[in-house]
Structure formats: C-alpha cells, structure tokens
C-alpha cells in the first residue's frame, strides 16, 4: 500500500517537474492570469498538438516572450490574438473564430444533438403508441 502511495507521489512530482515555465512571467496576479490564459490558448505550430504554454520548442519560447512583452506593453488580449492570427492564421488559436470555413465545425455538435433528440423522440413516441410492453423488434 505504502509503495503505491510513494509511486503516486513520484508521478505527481514528475508532472510538476515537467512544467515548462518555471518562473512566473508577472508578479501581478491578474497579468499572470492573462499570460497563462493566452499561452494556453495559442497552439505551438512546431509541435502541433501542444499549446505555447506546454511546449519547450524554441518557437514556443519566442511566442511566450512575445505574449509577455505585449501584455507588459498594455496590449489587450484581442490585440495579442490578432497579432498571432495575422502571422499564423486561425490555426494558432485553439478556440477558432466562427467563419465560413469553420461554420460546420461549430454547428456539428448542435446538429448532432438535434438529430439524436429527433431520433430519440421518434422512438419514444413509437413505443408509447404501442400499448404493451417492450419493443417487439428489440426483444426479438
């Protein structure tokens, strides 16, 4: 039992040791919060399934520096995101904006929900019309 606890503690220690940003970028908690939020929302383009906050690639470090400098210079979050998308396109954002290209991406969950609810409703109505017991087809 103790061995398992020790293993779990070691795993947790390894996770925290793997953190890329070892020092806080800002003393001010609000600025640090914005910094963390932005770097977690930006995609590292070299290692495409990591965020800029997660990656230790050289470009990710440069983009973190860019975000830090822009926050320090008083730029808004929108300014910083626009700076990034002007250079790297929407792909750099993990939260892509709604546009003609991404409309299917955004609409798909809603469409699937409507389809599933429709199918479920049809099934429920059909079963409630049959006056007895379970669906004969289902039990067959």
């Amino acid at each position, binding site marked *: 039992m103790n061995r398992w606890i020790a293993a779990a503690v070691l795993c947790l220690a390894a996770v925290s040791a793997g953190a890329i940003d070892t020092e806080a970028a800002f003393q001010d908690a609000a600025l640090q919060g914005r910094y963390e939020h932005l770097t977690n929302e930006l995609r590292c*383009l*070299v290692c*495409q399934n990591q965020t800029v906050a997660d990656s230790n690639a*050289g*470009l990710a470090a*440069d*983009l973190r520096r*860019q975000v830090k400098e822009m926050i320090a210079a008083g730029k808004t979050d929108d300014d910083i995101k626009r700076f990034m*998308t*002007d*250079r*790297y*396109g929407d*792909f750099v954002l993990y939260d892509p904006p709604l546009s003609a290209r991404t409309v299917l991406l955004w609409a798909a969950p809603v469409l699937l929900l409507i389809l599933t609810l429709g199918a479920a409703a049809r099934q429920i109505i059909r079963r409630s019309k049959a006056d007895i017991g379970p669906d004969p087809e289902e039990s067959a």
Partner: protein
Amino acid sequence: MWRYFVPAAVFLALGGVFAFTLMRIDSGKLDVREIQSPLIGKPAPAFSLPSVLEPSRLVDSRSLAGKSYAFNVWGTWCGGCREEHAALIAISRTSGVPIIGLDWKDERPQAQAWLAQLGNPYTEVISDAEGRTAIDWGVYGAPETFLVSPAGIIVEKFIGPLTEAVWQQKFAPHIKAGVAQ
C-alpha cells in the same frame, strides 16, 4: 432491414473518407501539418537585421524595395536546410532573383562556417538570433521560402526543403508572369 443497412452505409462511407485521406497523405499529395500562410497577398514584413558575414552592417528591408526577391529561412541546426542547400545554389545561378537568407535562431560562427563549407547562395544573409523577424513572417519550421514581388507583396510560400522542381512549379511562373519582375 433499414436499421441494419443505414449504420453499415455510414460506417463504409466514413471508412472510405478516412482511407482516401490517408492515401493522399501517404502519397505526399496532402500535408496535414502544412498551414496556409495568411501573409500571402500581404506586404512583406519589414526588417532591419545585421549581416551574418559583416555583423556590423545592418540590412534593411527598404533597400530591397522595387525588386523581386526570394526570402529563405534557414539555420545550421536544421536538417532540411542542409538538404535544400545545393538546390538553392543552383537556383541562385539561374533564377535571376536575389535570394535573401534569414539565419534563424542560430550562432553566427556556425552560420559563417556553413556558408564557407557549403557555398553561399544568398545575396544577403541576415541574422535573426532572437527570432522576432521570423515571427513577423509567420515562420514555424525551417526551411521556409517566400517570394516577394517588386511591389513588396508576398506572392508565394513553400514550406520544406526547396528543390529546383518546386521552384519551377511554384515560383518561376510568378517571375515569368511579371508579377515578380
């Protein structure tokens, strides 16, 4: 009957789409990592950076105005750059447009040694040790090559090791069409 047929048809259609896409990736027709640059059709970002060969001299993008040029991002740490180097030298002799090299996040002595050893295809080689100009150009992986028109507009971008065939196919037509003369 329908309740068995519909799921099977959906499954087969999805499988078909996946197989088709995977085959295109496999044959090199589709690169899922490649990102279309939003900079194509936009003015080339300005820069002012020290020359790799004469560190005390700054090269300013304004000195390139009115001429077409290729802009090649490389580094001595980059394997694909070594791969494309011979092609760059050949292109520099035949294409008629100057090639500007951006030595990205690199050490100057190593870059100088690389050019001395492998030859220098560049009209100007500039050092972007901090990677700021590379960010302005939306660079995410070397080698990357851009073509800038005389009006200062980025008209083409290629990601990956450049070859003479790629140059002929993607870059030469712009130059011929006079867009980049």
